[in-house]
């Protein structure tokens, strides 16, 4: 029982939030199920291409986040090095940057005439207008979410348990694998879900940096945006698919981690 206020206050608040999120979701799903995926000749191709492109690029982004982001988060939390304060601040920048600004910044950095991009162009590598560019844009905006979540978990981790493991003979790496990571597992999963969903939903930065071309760079959000003008029902169907996939991933994650909110 929460002290200090009648029980119906938090319940009403929870129902309000639920309704606020639920009503648009239900409205979208209700219209989406009424759409025939094969009604127009171009619809199945456009929807399918966008779906698979989104899934593959965001999974690649997630893998990169885990491989690169986990040790980076550990270093930011535990390992003092010169410039760590700056690195910590930089990790937060993509989170507050508007996506279109992120896209512009990526262009000015990695575009053909960009700061680093001009060198890449000389070597024959162009990132803009490519699927690699999509992954790059997704990484830029979503890896910070993973790193921030995991960094916080590593900061909170109980050093005594790790020290105890090492006194009992574990190596540093062993302690990390068998003590630190399992303890941080909920945060790793939460960070992964945040990162993946941010990558799936990325719109402004990919549109600016990678462009929009079916099959190559037109992810689901970009396809929905383009379909709004040419095939509204197709946009609704793709939007509904997005919701189903997102809810599915969240459901699977909750099941896998076995986390339930605990009663006080």
């Amino acid at each position: 029982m929460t002290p200090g206020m009648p029980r119906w206050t938090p319940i009403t608040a929870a129902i309000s939030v639920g309704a606020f999120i639920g009503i648009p979701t239900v409205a979208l799903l209700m219209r989406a199920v009424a759409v025939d995926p094969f009604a127009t000749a171009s619809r199945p191709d456009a929807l399918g291409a966008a779906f698979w492109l989104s899934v593959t690029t965001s999974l690649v982004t997630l893998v990169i986040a885990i491989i690169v982001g986990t040790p980076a988060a550990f270093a930011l939390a535990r390992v003092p090095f010169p410039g760590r304060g700056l690195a910590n601040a930089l990790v937060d920048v993509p989170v507050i940057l508007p996506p279109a600004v992120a896209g512009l910044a990526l262009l000015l950095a990695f575009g053909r005439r960009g700061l680093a991009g001009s060198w890449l162009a000389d070597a024959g590598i162009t990132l803009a207008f490519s699927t690699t560019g999509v992954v790059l844009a997704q990484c830029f905006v979503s890896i910070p979410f993973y790193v921030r979540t995991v960094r916080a978990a590593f900061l909170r981790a109980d050093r005594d348990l790790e020290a105890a493991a090492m006194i009992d003979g574990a190596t540093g790496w062993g302690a990390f694998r068998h003590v630190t990571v399992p303890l941080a597992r909920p945060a790793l999963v939460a960070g992964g879900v945040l990162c993946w969903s941010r990558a799936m939903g990325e719109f402004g930065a990919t549109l600016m940096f990678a462009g929009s071309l079916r099959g190559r760079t037109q992810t689901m959000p970009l396809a929905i945006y383009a379909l709004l003008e040419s095939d509204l029902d197709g946009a609704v169907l793709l939007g509904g698919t997005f919701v189903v996939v997102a809810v599915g991933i969240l459901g699977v994650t909750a099941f896998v981690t076995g986390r339930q909110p605990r009663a006080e």
Partner: protein
Amino acid sequence: MLPTSPPEMGATRLQSRRAFIALFATPASLSACRGTNTASSAQTTPEPEPRVSAESNDVVMFAASSLTLVLDKMWQAFRMQPGNEGLAFTANYGSSSQLRTQLQEGAEADIFASADVAQMEQVAKAGLVDGNATVFARNRLVVIVPKGNPGKVTTLADLAKPGVKFVTTPPDVPIGAYARASLKKLASDTANGNGYDAKVLANIVSEEANVRQVVVKVQLGEADAGICYATDVTTVPAGEVTTIDIPDSANVVAEYPIAILKSAKAPAAARRLISFINSPSGQSILVAAKFKPA
């Protein structure tokens, strides 16, 4: 329980509320005064003009993105005319197809200015247009390449070279439809070779949301070439893009229709604006921006 303000705040609250109302009432009554004509100047109390209470002071226009800079100039000139000083202008720029979708889904505006007849016809078919649409300007297409010409595109035939990064819009955006029509006309010219338009379309690396985005991609040097309106070139700082002309035989005449919408909240002001746009002063502003007159 929410904290209540102490009783002595009540008096100041009331005063500030009165001041608040006075602040807003004064301009309304002043504009009412301005509206009275000389015949009633003998009256001691000015009567408010009917249109102040019935009509909004804000003219809302949904306009094609290629009109972005010229409409601002148009409004500045329109506002200087007597009787228009109290009016405000809100423009919603976007691709005409995007604006058409917004209107079809219930967005309200006074005027719709489209970059092609097709989008205006769809809006009219949805029963949203009040009266008839009239063409107020024309435009033509050009090819633009970035400064430094990274794709080495110097002639129209070069657009078909494999590997050229060509950007355009989806075909339902006016510039996308016009560009594809123009490429088709160029394909029938034997000098360009068979399947010219298919080769150029195969070079598309991105379909941007509207013509301004196409211009930006070329301006930044990311794209090797793009097709835009002749008027868009005037908005880019000198030297950042180079133009390749499309001959009249293969060019398209882009027609810009304009119409009052049934959802207009300022219809009288909107009609005056459209008359101004069609008047010689309005048309000269368009011509100065490299549009062709109606």
